[in-house]
């Protein structure tokens, strides 16, 4: 059956037959890097197009349909436009910080790719602290935003960056707590363990109320963490023109743009892994025939299907809700999400100890 792990194994065997183990490793690393960058570009293009289509249909418009068949090449054309544009650096800007900020955003997004299991046995780095790694690295994102906002020497940018700092720091808490719910139930931080614990059923089905609450909190928190509407206060174009990337243009702007979409993809992939079983197919109890049919669907399709479902959810939020105000945003976190997810964590712990889940 066609799957990523199959291809990867074939490739590994083929390389091993030609080179010695060290070279094989080096070449595999390079290939993985190229694949990640390729995936980046591909994902960016697909997600931008997807967002524009979702927005258009919700807004009773047609959406991009001029470039290529059905407008499929639209985001490619956009990228091309951004590449040939001049990347201005404002006169009063802190040149060094201004220029490296978008790259830091990109690097963070790339680092986050490492522990994600794209398919059965197809993972760049299955470390034993996978979930912790993700939540630790994703907080570096705020540094790039603060850098961009500070170094632009623009008050809009500065305010956007400060907003985003407050926002990301707060929402990390409830995102972390809702991740902890699953960690408590699984007893492991390793991504592959978490996925395997869902072989009998995804946590969203096995976990009852605590996991549902954790799922909702997780979605809200990651929407805020990735600066997506209704929590897009860092950009808030009707208040701050474009927030922290007001002064960016050309490819540097494109990198921020891309990093935002990649971050959305990653948090959705993490959500799909934790709550929806990652690449685990959908199984119902003892219905062996049904389960076998489900098994025939490649694991990568399961993974991407779930991830894109989550991405759709986040896009759906964006095109439905108005934006919150900064104090309401912090209220929501500290007065609602945080207490709820703390109590929820207690509930989940009780459930894990008493073994109430399936």
């Amino acid at each position: 059956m066609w799957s990523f792990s199959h291809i990867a194994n074939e490739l590994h065997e083929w390389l091993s037959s030609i080179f010695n183990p060290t070279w094989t490793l080096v070449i595999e690393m390079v290939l993985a890097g190229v694949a990640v960058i390729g995936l980046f570009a591909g994902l960016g293009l697909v997600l931008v197009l997807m967002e524009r289509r979702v927005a258009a249909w919700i807004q009773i418009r047609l959406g991009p349909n001029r470039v290529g068949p059905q407008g499929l090449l639209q985001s490619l054309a956009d990228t091309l436009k951004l590449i040939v544009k001049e990347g201005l650096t404002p006169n009063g800007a802190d040149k060094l910080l201004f220029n490296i900020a978008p790259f830091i955003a990109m690097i963070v997004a790339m680092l986050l790719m490492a522990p994600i299991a794209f398919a059965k046995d197809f993972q760049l780095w299955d470390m034993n602290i996978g979930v912790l790694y993700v939540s630790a690295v994703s907080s570096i994102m705020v540094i790039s935003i603060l850098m961009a906002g500070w170094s632009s020497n623009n008050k809009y940018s500065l305010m956007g960056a400060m907003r985003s700092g407050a926002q990301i720091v707060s929402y990390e808490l409830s995102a972390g707590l809702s991740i902890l719910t699953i960690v408590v139930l699984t007893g492991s931080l390793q991504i592959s363990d978490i996925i395997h614990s869902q072989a009998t059923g995804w946590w969203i089905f096995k976990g009852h109320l605590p996991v549902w609450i954790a799922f909702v909190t997780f979605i809200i928190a990651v929407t805020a963490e990735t600066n997506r509407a209704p929590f897009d206060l860092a950009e808030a174009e009707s208040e701050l023109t474009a927030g922290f990337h007001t002064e960016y243009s050309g490819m540097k702007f494109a990198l921020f743009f891309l990093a935002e979409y990649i971050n959305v993809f990653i948090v959705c992939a993490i959500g799909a892994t934790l709550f929806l079983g990652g690449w685990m197919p959908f199984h119902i109890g003892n219905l062996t025939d049904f389960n076998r049919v489900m098994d025939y669907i490649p694991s990568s399709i399961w993974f991407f299907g779930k991830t894109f479902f989550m991405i759709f959810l986040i896009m759906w939020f964006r095109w439905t809700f108005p934006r919150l105000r900064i104090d309401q945003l912090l209220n929501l976190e500290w007065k609602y999400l945080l207490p709820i997810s703390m109590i929820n964590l207690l509930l989940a712990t009780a459930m894990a100890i008493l073994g109430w889940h399936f």
Partner: protein
Amino acid sequence: MFEEVGTTTEGDIIINVGPQHPATHGVLHLVITLNGETIKKVEPHLGFIHRSIEKMCESLTYRQFIYVTSRMDYLSSHINNHACALCVEKGLQVEVPPRAQVIRVLMDELTRIASHELWWGAMAMDLGAFTPFFHAFRERESINDIMEETCGARLTMNYMVPGGVMQDLHPDFQKRVKEFLQLYKRKIHEYDELVTGNIIFQNRMKGIGYLSPEDAVSYGCSGPAARGSGVSCDIRKVYPYEIYDKLEFDEVLETAGDSFARYMIRLREMQQSIRIIEQLIDNIPDGDFQAKTKAVLKLPKGEFYQRVETARGELGVYIVSEGGTTPYRIKFRSPGFSNLSVLDHIARGSKLGDLVAMMGTLDLVIPDIDR
């Protein structure tokens, strides 16, 4: 250079919102003093789209000057034209035929709905929800189609002339308006689902930008901005013109005085306009659509004033005539100018994000302020 004037001695930040900024919907320039996110002062700077319409009108004849007024408050161009036509008629002492009066009122109310639709979409967009804007345009476009069919243009119609209207109604007019009414009734609940009932929206609007009735009066606010504070100022009720005194409709009043009250006023006003249209659409009297007037209009020596209720508030047209074919002096009292003046008062102490919401509920059209 801006670094030096950028911050005050206490460390407050001064930012320039506009003249080109997504929130101002035009070329308004607001100089805002901020303490963190809290607004300390808002200073509107005007004049970026000043076209001296009043001076232009002085060199145009009484037939010609009406078209310029479409360009003041371009969202209620019919009503602007109507005010000018009424004022000229007052001077000429012509009787407008009943059919023309009904047509004028119908057009005014359609314009009012169209204007409020656009405001609703833009308001939601200011708050970061993009979808309502496009949904509002669906209804607004169908009004525009009706206008295009009868008046020949979608935005600057120049349909009202002294003595009546320029052309008779299009034969399809009644049918199209009824279609629109149906469409509107089918879609009106979506406004509540998408925006009004939304908890985020309500939290952002309620209790924000409080304007007391006394302040509303002393700043000279009019229209929905004042009625949101409970000040009864609907010119259609207070100084009825045309056939408004014979029509059944309510003056919409809210007492809360906050942004949400001003928002609800406009939504409910649309319903009242629908009510007026429903009363009139089947009862358009036959007859002339234009009174007989001389080819060259000359107003007698004197001063003439006429006020109407536009979608934004009270528009006053003041004409001084020396007996010639052109006005000696003309002055427009535009609602937007007074409504903008209250912005600093209501915005102090609230957050930057609220400023956008408040500007939305004041429904500012910049060419109306600058003229």
